[in-house]
């Protein structure tokens, strides 16, 4: 692989690795970056459609840690991916402004005093209605599943497709700038995807060939579960191809894991100083780099486990780098443009190593 070359590898349609070869060979160590790209959402259960009190509803379970009450009374879009041999049926309802949306109806305030006094809603209760209560359908004896498939139209879907497909509900909301100065950004899925976007756009822009080889992983693994086919297996496989089995190459490599670990909006990128994996030498190197490149940063003592420990067990020293996100697990998560620009500056400096 010649210096400066750009390569990429995909895996199972969910994960991606992109590589920029440096002037030095990979055995001199590579810089690894891990970006999870999944986001909290509601997934349909295998037999989702049911009716209750005349309403047709969809039974869901949360994927990731969600702030359950915030998913009430908010517009949701339905995304489906149904494999059909080599091809698939893909369905999106609710993202276009003329589309209908699905809503999980909250209880009215007037009757909520006792019913919601202790807990507003359980995650098990988060089931959207997908139509009006249909006396006609019930008179005809049609099941909720039949109604759902009919309403989805003549796409050739049947009940089995609800079992083996991926059916997800996400907020039907466009990204928005907040405040008269548009200094904040509200959008779905920012906890992980925002930093992945910033890094990706900095990585693919024109820049001189770096000293070392850089590998960016965008992983669609299950949230908080790095050990999986599209997570640890894929990372191990790509690194194995790059570094061979040379312990020195692994020892000379570094890893940055993009996991949100807190921080205050508008004060720059966040370095996590809490884990055993956040070795002082890694931290020192990053702090020196940020000082040289004038990257605004903050240090937090995050205590939630991240993927950094798993990466470290693969060999390289790993550290968590992120931007602050307000309201993780809510339909709309908030970031500050100042932090996005700080992160861009940080990644440009990192990618030049």
């Amino acid at each position, binding site marked *: 692989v010649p210096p400066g070359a750009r390569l990429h590898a995909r895996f199972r349609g969910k994960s991606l690795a992109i590589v920029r070869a440096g002037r030095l060979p990979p055995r001199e160590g590579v810089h690894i970056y891990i970006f999870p790209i999944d986001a909290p959402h509601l997934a349909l259960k295998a037999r989702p459609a049911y009716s209750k009190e005349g309403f047709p509803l969809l039974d869901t379970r949360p994927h990731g840690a969600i702030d359950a009450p915030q998913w*009430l*009374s908010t517009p949701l879009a339905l995304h489906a991916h149904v494999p059909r041999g080599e091809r698939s049926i893909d369905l999106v309802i609710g993202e276009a402004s003329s*589309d209908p949306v699905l809503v999980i109806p909250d209880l009215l*305030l*007037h009757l909520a005093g006792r019913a919601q006094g202790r807990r507003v809603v359980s995650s098990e209760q988060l*089931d959207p*209605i997908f139509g009006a209560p249909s006396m006609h359908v019930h008179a005809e004896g049609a099941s909720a599943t039949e109604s759902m498939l009919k309403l989805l139209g003549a796409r050739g879907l049947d009940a089995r497709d609800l079992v083996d497909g991926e059916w997800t509900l996400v907020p039907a909301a466009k990204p928005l700038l907040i405040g008269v100065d548009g200094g904040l950004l509200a959008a779905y899925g920012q906890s992980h995807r925002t930093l992945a976007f910033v890094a990706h756009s900095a990585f693919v822009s024109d820049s001189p060939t770096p000293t070392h080889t850089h590998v960016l992983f965008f992983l669609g693994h299950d949230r908080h579960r790095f050990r999986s086919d599209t997570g640890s297996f894929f990372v191990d496989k790509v690194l194995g191809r790059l570094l061979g089995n040379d312990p020195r190459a692994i020892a000379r490599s570094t890893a940055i894991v993009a996991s949100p670990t807190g921080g205050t909006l508008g004060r720059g990128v966040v370095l996590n100083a809490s884990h055993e994996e956040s070795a002082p030498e890694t931290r020192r190197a990053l702090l020196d780099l940020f000082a040289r490149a004038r990257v605004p940063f903050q240090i937090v003592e995050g205590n939630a486990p991240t993927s950094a420990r798993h990466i470290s067990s693969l060999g390289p020293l790993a550290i968590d780098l992120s931007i602050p996100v307000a309201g993780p697990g809510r339909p709309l998560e908030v970031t500050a443009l100042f932090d996005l620009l700080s992160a861009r500056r940080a990644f440009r400096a990192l990618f030049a190593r």
Partner: protein
Amino acid sequence: MFTAAAAAQIAWTPIAAAAPKPAPAPPFADRYKSILARALTPSRFVHAALELARGAGFRAVDASDPHALGSLSPGDRVSFTYRGNTLALVVIGTDAARDGFRIVAAHIDAPHLRLEAAAIGRSGDAAVFRARAYGGIKRFHWLGRPLQLVGEAHIRGGRIVPIDLGPRDGAAFFATPLHGAQSLAAAAPQGLHGGGALVELIAASIPAQGRTADDPLRTRVLTLLYKKFQVDEEGLRSARLSFVPAEPPRDVGLDRALVGAHGQDDRACSAVTLLAMLDTPERPKHTRVAYFVDREEIGSTGTTGAAGRFLPWVTRAVLRGLGRPHGADAIRALLARSEALSADVQSAMNPLFPTVFDRRNAGRLGAGPVITKSSGGFGKAGGYEASAEMMSRTLRRLSGAKVPFQVSTFGRVDEGGGATIAAELAARGIDVLDIGAPVLSMHSPLEIAAYSDLTALAAAFQAFWLAD
């Protein structure tokens, strides 16, 4: 009295007939959503309604000016307004109002966040707009959801400046705290309700450049507001500005049978009353009135609320226009001969929280307009009870016109309750009955109604106006 067969007729098209792609929304749905999208506040509702009424031949009159109206005769159409926040559309009947009015009354205010007079503050790293709840809200609904700023400022010299600031201008407002992953529902200082507590919405978060004596972030907000609207901090002190959800009304459900929007309590009934009035071309025997009031969510008081002077003034103007005695006794006598439908939304069975409803007597979405004989909670406290005679007349009229309806109660007896403007109308001597569209998620930023109930409600109003 619930007639499932009739409801099915109006409410349901067989699912088997559904087209592969969702069918285009029917014209009623488009008209309805366009009114809701414009009528973000009471004054915006009045403005939009006046525009539509002018097109339908209504003469516009200020209700506080006794000489504004000339003489009236049967068939005449007049719109009365007061302070831009309450409205009555009147069509004079062939009886020259001798049998009283047939009034459909709905409120045009809705729960939301209202900007304080001390509008701009500071919270952590951001400048914030300071707001408080208008009406009953669940605080957590309004945090973490994009809001737009709408209303008007009264600036020096008496000039009124309309203010609209939302996603279309590249700015939405958010009340989310800038740090912390705690659940907003748990973080609400006063639990679920907490409506009285201050809500801080992020106004600006990038410090202004250059040297200023004042807080740079506050300066940034004020500079931007002045540039866009020529309104300064002094102007904000005398403004009526509301934060309302930035999401426009949407069809809900794969069958598009439902509509989700903010403020359907009670602008669902208001919009339907307006459309029914505009769509009733007949020259009526009875004088029909569509009456829109403000301030229901905060007690119906004030100049533009149902307890205000507006309705007696309208009555006086009509009597005077018809060349009849129009003193206090004549006004009282006319109103005592009048009938009214108090058109307000009603709670509908929520399948996720069925235990707070009385299953046999709960209103059902899609089963037609809900008639409520008695409202209030805990022994009908704070509510109103309609007369059996008014119930009987109304049910007969709706059945005669083949309008589906259901008779329901608000919820289980001890879980809570609600009231409407019915008692205020009754205090004028009017015979009143509550009727309205059933809704889900009432008082939330996204309330849900069924189109079939809204069209049936319009038919119910027309049946009421046109019945002998």
